[in-house]
């Protein structure tokens, strides 16, 4: 696990921040057999000085392995430290996540940054506070109980004073975090809507992104990717490009191809010319269409698991409903294509990228380059939005392959729009079948959920295989890691496949496909988006069949009080009337739907209500209102929480109404936004979010809570408006028209 020497780390902090900080590595403690499990990310990063340093000059240095990408985690972590240490936030200096320096917290994903990183920093800060208080008590010769802290100043009741800054020294925090100090119960910065620290630079033209990095002597690179996955170069003529103004070099390793130029536009032009001078052998191994893929998914070899099994006596079955739901491949489609800056110097590589996991990235870079880990330094620098694994890891390897060929030269590589659209790993397509049985009184007595999917994580950092795109195209190619599922209870493709509702009989079967012709990986919520869509659609069909109000029907099957409360709360927010009736307004069919999920069955509770209007002529759906009530336990930053839930609702509106990755046997058919439309302003719904704060409950991850229930509420509202359900995502105009035709037939 641990590759770096203390000196490497000390050296880096000195050079980048003008700070001289001593670090200790985890002592022999870890090699002992019996080590207590510690909360969150402390478990793998036990030393206090791997998290917090208090400086004599009044600054507090905080190291975190969870990275910012506009979700506000940096600010939230600062709030946690400031609260527990009883200091002003302005004293905190956050160090960008850097391999060899920052704690290894793996990937920033799964809405786990507060639950893992936040709790680690909270305990670390609590320990730091107690250590300094003990020292103050000794020095001032008064009991700890008589000491008060105010922004790091320590005062005794008799008027004696000292401070963190006077008491601190390098050795003080060279010890494991005890995680036994009582966390503060009354809060100062926790629970406040503090303005995010990353925003001012973003709204004033400051340097905020890896895209904005400028290093003297920096050259610009572009990659030339194959027309389709697994294609190989058969012939290449570099002569025309080498004659172009500003071109420095064409780099080729196997079927990895790149060009470097003095100026950015020269690299862009050279890429176009190079494209015309390279011939590829196509693999032609993609499915011919999404429907063809859906037809074969159930026959493919799969890893099969059965979860959530319950077998109990129940009343006799009166009625069975069965349905099949599908979800297509969906793109992350970040607005800014992925970008990295890399430099090879003195036999070591430094790469700046917006990847969600600096250490996992380094693991696969080590495999690719054969360098020792300490010769590869991955530094996080924010990029455009991260909604899972986009091109951020891949572009880092691309930039390094180029920088390695041009020692000392800083290389800036930004992917072009079509690079990102065609080569980012998508969210997997899925099929879900649900069979559910009602008894005579309209209670669910049996439930079976069966799903087919590719994996939802092919991130770097696995023990075997290499998950960086360019590694598969090198002269000596690597193979991707074997397919695996993230285990329950969080789950991967089966995330949220086990309903939180209580049924006497239940079974969930997960078929994780081996074959992955279309590259997929983590997209926000993993399998939860489709599983919640399917479960919540079926819940509405069952409520209809039982002639019961959809909110009451859900409440009847829920025992978790917090789940029940978000549902009743959102019903109140939206003024939900029993059994909402579809109606017509200005020729539009109007409907309303409700949905609920507790993300991963572990994190935030979200209940949603959607109002939709459907144009029967064009088949276009407009989501007019989305309401959400959310409970994330102890709220760190209420406005940040709301921003995440609101954003998730708008993003899921786009996924649900519009999005599907088009492809055929020859490749992925997306070059630009016209070929992958996403929601534009005119179609953005009104969004209303209320949060329920629970001071005595642990803080839950909230970043992915609203996509699943948001989608399902829209789908239920559309079913309500049309009198006919659409079982396949996206809810496209053609599907609306087909559903209307069917509805007329059955009427």
């Amino acid at each position: 696990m641990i590759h770096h020497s203390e000196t490497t780390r000390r050296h880096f902090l000195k050079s980048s921040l003008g700070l001289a900080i001593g670090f200790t590595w985890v002592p022999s403690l870890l090699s002992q057999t019996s080590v207590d499990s510690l909360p969150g990310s402390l478990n793998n990063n036990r030393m206090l000085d791997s998290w917090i340093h208090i400086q004599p000059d009044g600054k507090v240095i905080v190291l975190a392995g969870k990275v910012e990408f506009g979700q506000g985690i940096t600010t939230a972590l600062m709030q946690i430290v400031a609260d527990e240490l009883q200091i002003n936030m302005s004293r905190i200096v956050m160090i960008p996540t850097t391999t060899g320096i920052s704690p290894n917290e793996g990937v920033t994903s799964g809405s786990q940054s507060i639950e893992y990183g936040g709790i680690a920093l909270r305990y670390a800060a609590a320990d730091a506070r107690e250590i300094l208080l003990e020292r103050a008590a000794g020095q001032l010769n008064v009991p700890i109980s008589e000491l008060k802290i105010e922004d790091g100043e320590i005062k005794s009741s008799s008027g004696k004073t000292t401070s963190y800054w006077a008491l601190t020294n390098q050795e003080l925090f060279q010890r494991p975090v005890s995680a036994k100090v009582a966390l503060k119960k009354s809060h100062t910065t926790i629970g406040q809507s503090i303005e995010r620290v990353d925003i001012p630079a973003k709204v004033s033209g400051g340097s905020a992104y890896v895209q904005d990095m400028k290093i003297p002597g920096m050259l610009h690179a572009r990659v030339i990717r194959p027309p389709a996955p697994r294609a190989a170069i058969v012939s290449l003529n570099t002569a025309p490009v080498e004659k172009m103004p500003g071109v420095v070099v064409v780099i080729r390793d196997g079927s990895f191809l790149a060009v470097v130029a003095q100026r950015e536009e020269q690299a862009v032009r050279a890429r176009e010319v190079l494209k015309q001078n390279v011939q590829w052998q196509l693999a032609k191994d993609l499915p011919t269409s999404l429907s063809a893929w859906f037809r074969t998914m159930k026959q493919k070899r799969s890893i099969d698991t059965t979860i959530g099994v319950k077998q109990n006596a129940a009343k006799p079955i009166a009625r069975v409903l069965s349905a099949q739901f599908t979800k297509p491949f969906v793109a992350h489609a970040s607005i800014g294509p992925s970008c990295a800056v890399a430099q090879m110097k003195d036999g070591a590589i430094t790469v700046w990228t917006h990847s969600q996991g600096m250490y996992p990235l380094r693991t696969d870079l080590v495999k690719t380059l054969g360098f020792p880990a300490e010769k590869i330094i991955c530094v996080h620098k924010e990029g455009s939005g991260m909604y899972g694994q986009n091109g951020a890891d891949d572009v880092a390897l691309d930039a390094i392959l180029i920088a390695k060929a041009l020692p000392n030269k800083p290389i800036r590589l930004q992917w072009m729009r079509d690079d990102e659209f065609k080569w980012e790993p998508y969210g997997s397509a899925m099929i879900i079948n649900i069979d559910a049985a009602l008894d005579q009184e309209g209670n669910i007595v049996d439930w079976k959920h069966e799903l087919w999917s590719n994996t939802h994580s092919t991130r770097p950092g696995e023990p075997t295989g290499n998950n960086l795109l360019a590694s598969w195209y090198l002269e000596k190619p690597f193979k991707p890691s074997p397919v695996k599922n993230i285990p329950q209870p969080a789950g991967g493709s089966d995330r949220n496949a086990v309903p939180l509702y209580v049924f006497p009989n239940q079974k969930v079967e997960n078929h994780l496909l081996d074959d992955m012709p279309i590259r997929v990986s983590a997209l926000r919520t993993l399998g939860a988006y489709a599983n919640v869509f399917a479960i919540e659609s079926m819940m509405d069909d069952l409520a209809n069949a039982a002639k019961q109000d959809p909110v009451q029907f859900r409440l009847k099957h829920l025992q978790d009080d917090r789940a029940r409360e978000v549902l009743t709360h959102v019903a109140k927010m939206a003024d939900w009337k029993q059994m909402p009736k579809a109606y017509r307004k200005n020729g539009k069919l109007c409907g309303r739907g409700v949905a609920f999920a507790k993300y991963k069955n572990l994190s935030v509770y979200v209940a949603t209500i959607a109002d939709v209007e459907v144009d029967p002529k064009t088949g276009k759906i407009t989501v007019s209102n989305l309401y959400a009530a959310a409970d994330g336990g102890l709220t760190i930053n209420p406005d940040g929480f709301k921003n995440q839930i609101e954003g998730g609702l708008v993003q899921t509106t786009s996924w649900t109404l519009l999005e599907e990755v088009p492809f055929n046997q020859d490749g992925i058919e997306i070059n630009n936004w016209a070929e992958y439309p996403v929601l534009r302003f005119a179609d953005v719904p009104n969004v209303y979010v209320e949060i329920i704060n629970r001071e005595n409950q642990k803080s839950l991850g909230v970043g992915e809570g609203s996509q699943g229930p948001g989608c399902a509420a829209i789908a239920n509202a559309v079913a309500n408006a049309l009198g006919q359900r659409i079982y396949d995502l996206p809810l496209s105009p053609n599907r609306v028209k087909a559903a209307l035709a069917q509805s007329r037939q059955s009427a």
Partner: protein
Amino acid sequence: MIVNLSVNGQVLNVDVDPSTPLLYVLRNDASINSAKYGCGAGQCGSCAVLLDDKVVLSCSYPVGSVNGNVKTLESYASDPTLLALNKAFIAEQAVQCGYCIPGMMIRAKVLLDKNISPSVPQIKASLQGHLCRCGTQTRIIKAIQRAGKELSV
């Protein structure tokens, strides 16, 4: 060929192919960060800047065709409307990743300079060419309305 430009009042002479998109010259020769590469095809709006008082999409606007003064978000402190927008976007926390935001602020400046109290449909229509993937649109609308109110007092 030498191209002469005025960017936020600073004069710039750049030896560059005149067909070069204005965006690359702004970012790499004029130290501009706010205009962003998003699509290179004028489809997303993240590269929007002002050419005199009109919005141009700098990713697909040849630098050789620039005839007038280029203005970007970097000049916000000396432009009352951009300053009001800067404050309003912070007050509303109308940012997630923020990559698309400078382009939207440029578009909103032109809107507010014509109409200080735009309605929601007017704001939506004005920003129809701008994409945001984080789903921050509802806050962006509120921020533009807040900036308008701020300017009207």
